[in-house]
């Protein structure tokens, strides 16, 4: 096992020699852009984009690198947002502890659902995850603490570490930037670790990975749990930004939206989900004045995406550049 891990990791370095510089450059540009962003765009909107970017990136870890299509990621995103909102509002915890509570809850839920779901493959796997997500939706609808269809409202923004007030949009923005950017870097690290290489091997050819001696189910469960946890981090952060948790976050259409974001941006690319999330959230927000046209425009863009950018926007750019992005 250890030896196998080592070989794959050295192979990676050979294959991708010189590449990390490009990624590093993109990350630096991205970070500078994000630091400057709130001075041009509306900070709350920018925070929403970042939360969804992290959510899509977490989903992409599972779909793009693990090859597992989950149709129930809203369950982790939403349950984390409920737990974090409840922790901040009722237990009076500080934002970072609330987010940790939410993230941990999503992780536990992901582990429990994942350990059952990974026993099936393909469409059956997707259906099992969808079924569990519907159960979570049902709980959110019925349970006392979730407030039914009103959701949890008026969550206080609180003081970071009990010291710094996050009531100001700018202060909150940089906190959210740190959390989501950290989360995305963490996901990047996972993908480019020996563990990530094994994942890709399983995605490409599962029987072969088994024959090489990998405990495939263990890898799948770990990646499922990791993906659920990071989706939870996104959901928990979002609940602090909007000061609410609602049924929208656990609804199946949220699971669908994250699939759309990932596919539009480029499945299995590092930056694709971020672009996809940016596009979808921007459309939802800035096309809001067009009323009923939002869904039509969204549909047209998706059709164009499927026809012209079958590998997603970043996937196509990556092919032009002949470099993985």
């Amino acid at each position, binding site marked *: 096992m250890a030896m196998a891990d080592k070989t794959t990791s050295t192979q990676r370095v050979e294959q991708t020699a010189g590449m990390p510089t490009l990624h590093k450059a993109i990350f630096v540009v991205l970070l500078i852009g994000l630091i400057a962003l709130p001075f041009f765009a509306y900070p709350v909107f920018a925070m929403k984009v970042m939360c969804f970017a992290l959510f899509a990136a977490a989903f992409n870890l599972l779909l793009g690198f693990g090859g597992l299509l989950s149709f129930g990621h809203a369950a982790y995103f939403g349950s984390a947002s409920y737990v974090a909102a409840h922790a901040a509002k009722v237990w009076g915890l500080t934002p970072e502890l609330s987010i940790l509570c939410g993230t941990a809850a999503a992780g536990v839920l992901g582990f429990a659902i994942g350990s059952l779901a990974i026993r099936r493959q393909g469409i059956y796997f997707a259906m099992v995850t969808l079924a569990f997500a519907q159960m979570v939706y049902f709980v959110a609808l019925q349970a006392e603490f979730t407030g039914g*269809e009103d959701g949890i409202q008026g969550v206080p923004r609180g003081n970071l570490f009990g010291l710094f007030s996050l009531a100001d949009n700018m202060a909150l923005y940089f906190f959210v930037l740190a959390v989501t950017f950290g989360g995305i870097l963490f996901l990047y690290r996972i993908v480019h670790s020996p563990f990530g290489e094994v994942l890709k091997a399983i995605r490409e050819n599962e029987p072969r990975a088994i024959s090489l001696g990998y405990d495939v189910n263990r890898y799948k469960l770990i990646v499922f749990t990791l993906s659920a946890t990071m989706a939870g981090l996104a959901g928990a952060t979002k609940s602090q930004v*909007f*000061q609410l948790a*609602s049924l*929208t*976050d656990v609804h199946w259409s949220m699971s669908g939206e994250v699939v759309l974001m990932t596919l539009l941006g480029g499945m299995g690319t590092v930056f694709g989900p971020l672009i996809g999330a940016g596009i979808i959230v921007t459309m939802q927000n800035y096309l*809001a*004045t067009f*009323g009923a046209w939002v869904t039509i425009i969204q549909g047209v863009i998706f059709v164009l995406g499927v026809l012209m950018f079958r590998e997603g926007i970043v996937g196509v750019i990556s092919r032009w550049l002949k470099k993985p992005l």
Partner: protein
Amino acid sequence: MINKFAISTLALAAMTGAPAMAQDISVKLGVLNDRSGIYADLSGEGSVVAARMAVEDFKAADKGMTVEIVSADHQNKPDVGSNIARQWYDVDGVNAILDIPTSSVALAVANITHEANGVMLNSGAGSTSLTREQCRPTTVHWTYDTAALANGTGAAMTNAGGKKWFFLTADYAFGHSLEENTTAVVEANGGEVVGQVNVPFPAQDFSSFLLQAQGSGADVIGLANAGGDTVNAIKQASEFGITQAGQKLAALLMFANDVHALGPQTAQGLSLTEAFYWDQNDGTREFSQRFMDTHGSMPSMVQAGVYSATLAYLEAVQTVGSAEDGKAVVDQMKAMDIDDALFGKVTIRADGRALHDMYLFEVKTAEESTGEWDLYNQISSVTGEEAFLPMLDECDFSKQ
């Protein structure tokens, strides 16, 4: 889009550069509602039309007021709605947000409005929390709430002889609270509840539940559900011939445009409470005809509520002299005597709840109905004090 628009308006204002005259008051209204989903007919573009009509009827321009209206679709998502609301207040200089159906979005906007010292004139949402658990000094809840609808229907029908009730309850918090509210009213008026059944939410097939209700011997079958569930239940009840067989069907949350969509053939004999119906008096008919000419359908009570709330708001702004301080404007609205063409006498209670009469209607039969929009017979009315829940002490903002 919103941003660009705001920037261009600002730029324009900067370019013209004329110093504002003392009596010049500029007001920016934002109509935030569902323009693509299930509440689009009920609120949607029609609410924007209603707000525009209110501005015209107020003759804002003659009174030295510049009123601008922006609108957006919250897609029934609280995060989209709260993002737009924040941006409107923080960046675009919106003074008041109107309509806002969908309780979860309305509650989020109520909080943001309070933080930004704006004004929320809610017409579309039904949650009683807006003036109770989550009451805010900057909230005005104009048209209806679920308790008033349940109250109106429960009391009037029990008094009219519908003593035995059976409930079909959507199995989630909203359905249960609707059932609970109505049960209390039915019992207070000497009626009894002979049974109830919880229906999974959302439901397509109501046949077994309707058969139970039919077999229960109840006089009235109460539909403690909303939206698609109510519509499905009514369609299937019509197939079973429930109202024709003598039992009454009471919808606890339903609107004229739903009834219009179902048609009198299907919905005949259904009882429901509303705050407004186009064919009530000359005032409502005149307004509704003008609305119809612009929008192509009769106004729902939500759209009528947007019109009347906007009128009252503009009057309050004129008295206060500025739209900047949301709480001051709301306080003025609470202090005013409002005699409205559509809602009659309206008082806004200290907690933000607008009190006006509510009416019990019965849907006409297909033979009685003389036109596409000739839908209701008015059965009775209740005053606002009776229909709406009493004020909670902690929401009495006149004492704070």
